[in-house]
């Protein structure tokens, strides 16, 4: 059996269905299953990468050629994103191995695996209704995991997330309905081919429905009210999954739909404005937060605003920079959530004021947090510097100097609130009494260490990754090639 993109969906599903049976025999083995699955999937993603760079792999399911069957489109962009997601999934599994100690553990691993599988499915699919199904898989796993800790705030955050997420799926389905009634097909390549037969007014309405439906998951302003609560109430590794994986898949879906169906200039201008507003409001809100995980959530929203700005400029360079920023943000934000998880655990409270002086008690974890903070602010020699630089260069190349100024302003605000936390960690006296300060488990340290190495290596040698992203960026912009490949011409 040769490797093919359907393994990304079939193998985790098989493992998830097997876990209840395995759980009857050995609880310890259940904890290892996701690790094996993600290791295998990273291997598949990386070995399929050179094949995808050559010519995109279009795998048909059930033997029916598109547009009459569902197909998975594995081009350079999907290859890059799935490699990122499966590797991050493995690292987050390493971190959760010892972090999650509250029952029911086997359900946590099932939900965790399926959350990441749902995100992978969104990226791989070439069919519109299939994307809706995977969006729902991701959403339901996310709702359940937000309430996993079963405390009062968690249940409330999950309920709010559920209400807003249901609106998102309702609007997405309305958009699918309108498209089906106008063009009669559900395959991305086929719809892109026939989209010019749709009238302008209907196109705008479909665009609005997609923007609301996908924008809620992608956390654009003003639809991101659910995000700070969900990120802060979920267990920390799940916060890392939300910020590093789920939101990337949603932004990919939004951008793929816009670049394929709606690529006219007014849409890009509108997206640019939305991206700028999202970024500014999120960074300003982050300054006012007293709880560390809510601050990280707002910072995540702001970074996604920056990515949207990069994508909406529309040139190959800016899309490439946006993809680079997605990669860096996934790695850095995951590390920040990991460090914050243990810092909160040991200080006993979610407030930033409780972190005073922890730099002395927990030097290694605080050091990792400091690296993450410096990297996300965009300081050399960390990876965040290069992605921000490339975004600013490409935006300036397109002549949008005002946007450059606003991005720099947001970066300054970011620097303020991150340095505030870092200085509290190291320079303040210990105020609250810390509950017995235990050592951070090895699994957590290993996970954070791996991410820190990635941040530093990519910061010192960015060119290798940068050149790998160029075919991915070109694939997103090139509508005609997608139609040709997707319909198996």
């Amino acid at each position, binding site marked *: *059996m040769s490797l*093919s993109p*359907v393994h990304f*969906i*079939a193998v985790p*599903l*098989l493992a*998830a*269905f*097997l876990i*209840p*049976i395995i759980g*009857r025999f050995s609880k310890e083995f259940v904890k290892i299953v996701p690790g094996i699955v993600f290791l295998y999937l990273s291997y598949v993603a990386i070995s399929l990468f050179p094949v995808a760079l050559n010519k995109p792999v279009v*795998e*048909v*399911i*059930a*033997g*029916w050629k598109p*547009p*009459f*069957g*569902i197909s998975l489109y594995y081009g350079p962009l999907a290859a890059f994103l799935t490699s990122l997601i499966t590797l991050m999934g493995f690292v987050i599994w390493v971190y959760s191995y010892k972090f999650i100690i509250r*029952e*029911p553990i086997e*359900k*946590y691993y*099932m*939900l965790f695996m*399926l959350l990441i599988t749902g995100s992978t*499915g969104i990226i791989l699919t070439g*069919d519109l*209704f*299939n994307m809706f*199904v*995977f969006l*729902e*898989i991701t959403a*339901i*796993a996310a*709702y*359940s*995991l937000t*309430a*996993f800790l*079963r405390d009062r705030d968690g*249940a409330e955050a*999950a309920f709010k997330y559920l209400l807003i997420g249901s609106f998102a799926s309702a609007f997405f389905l*309305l958009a699918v309905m*309108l498209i*089906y*009634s*106008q063009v*009669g*097909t*559900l395959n991305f390549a086929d719809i892109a081919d026939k989209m010019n037969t749709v*009238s302008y*007014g*209907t196109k705008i*309405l479909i665009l609005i429905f997609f923007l609301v439906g996908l924008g809620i998951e992608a956390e654009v302003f003003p639809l991101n009210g659910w995000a700070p609560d969900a990120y802060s109430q979920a267990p920390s590794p799940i916060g890392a999954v939300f910020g590093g994986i789920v939101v990337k898949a949603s932004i990919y879906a939004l951008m793929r739909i816009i670049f394929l169906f709606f690529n006219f200039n007014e849409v890009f201008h509108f997206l640019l404005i939305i991206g700028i507003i999202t970024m500014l409001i999120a960074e300003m809100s982050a300054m006012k937060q007293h709880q560390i995980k809510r601050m990280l959530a707002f910072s995540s929203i702001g970074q996604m605003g920056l990515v949207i700005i990069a994508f909406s400029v529309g040139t190959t360079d800016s899309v490439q920079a946006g993809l680079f920023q997605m990669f860096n943000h996934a790695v850095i934000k995951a590390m920040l959530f990991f460090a914050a998880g243990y810092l909160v655990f040991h200080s006993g409270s979610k407030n930033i004021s409780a972190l005073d002086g922890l730099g002395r008690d927990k030097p290694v974890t605080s050091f990792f947090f400091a690296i993450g903070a410096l990297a996300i602010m965009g300081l050399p020699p960390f990876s965040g510097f290069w992605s921000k630089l490339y975004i600013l260069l490409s935006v300036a190349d397109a002549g949008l100097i005002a946007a450059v100024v606003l991005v720099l302003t947001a970066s300054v605000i970011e620097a303020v609130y991150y340095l505030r936390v870092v200085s509290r960690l190291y320079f303040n006296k210990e105020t609250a009494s810390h509950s017995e300060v235990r050592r951070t488990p090895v699994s957590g340290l290993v996970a954070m260490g791996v991410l820190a190495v990635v941040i530093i290596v990519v910061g010192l040698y960015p060119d290798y990754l940068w050149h790998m992203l160029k075919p991915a960026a070109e694939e997103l912009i090139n509508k005609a090639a997608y139609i040709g490949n997707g319909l198996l011409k």
Partner: protein
Amino acid sequence: MRKVLAVLLLAIVGYYMIDSFLKIPFGENRNTVGDYYLNTTVKETGSVNTVTSIVVNYRGFDTLGEVTVLFLATTGLAAILFENKKRKRRLQHASLIVRVGAHLIYPLIILLGAYVFIHGHLTPGGGFQGGAIIATGVLLMFMSYRSFEVSHKLLVYFESIAGIAFVTIGLSGLIWGTSFLENILPLGIPNSLFSAGVIPIIYIAVGVKVGAELTGLLDNLLKTIK
């Protein structure tokens, strides 16, 4: 104040939706992929129920996703309602008529549910509908009798084995055919019970899975007393 804002917002949204949907002609046959499915379903899949052949064969990947959604919902519900000490059901005894009637109807409902999902490729219905009917029968018994219990271990086994069967059938399409979920068994004579290749097998697995899952879900929801 809030109600006024909500009504205003919904009026705007509703106006645009009605405006654009009224432009879609109602009842006209448009040129869609559905025509292809109608024309080729008997020849290429052997199933006479076009909706079944779409759900299981042409767009079988969506069904796999849907089965996953149901599995996730059951797992999520069990995780959210998890207690270290088991919860108990509010024990109420229904009246005599309900009890006797439930006892008589319950096996017939299970039989009807099994019929619906076994004949999914011949008559309207299929795995999801049959599974829901079975769960409704079990709910009737839950509501009528104090002591009716269903063993969770058995449900978990049914659910997992049915799910594994579905994915294994898909993978066997990959191994012995050319693509995931391909129809590799002989197609048989249309309109007879043993036709349509893997479609009835998949639907039976789906029916058993949905029935077991919905039963477990209802059992979890009924147990609200600590």
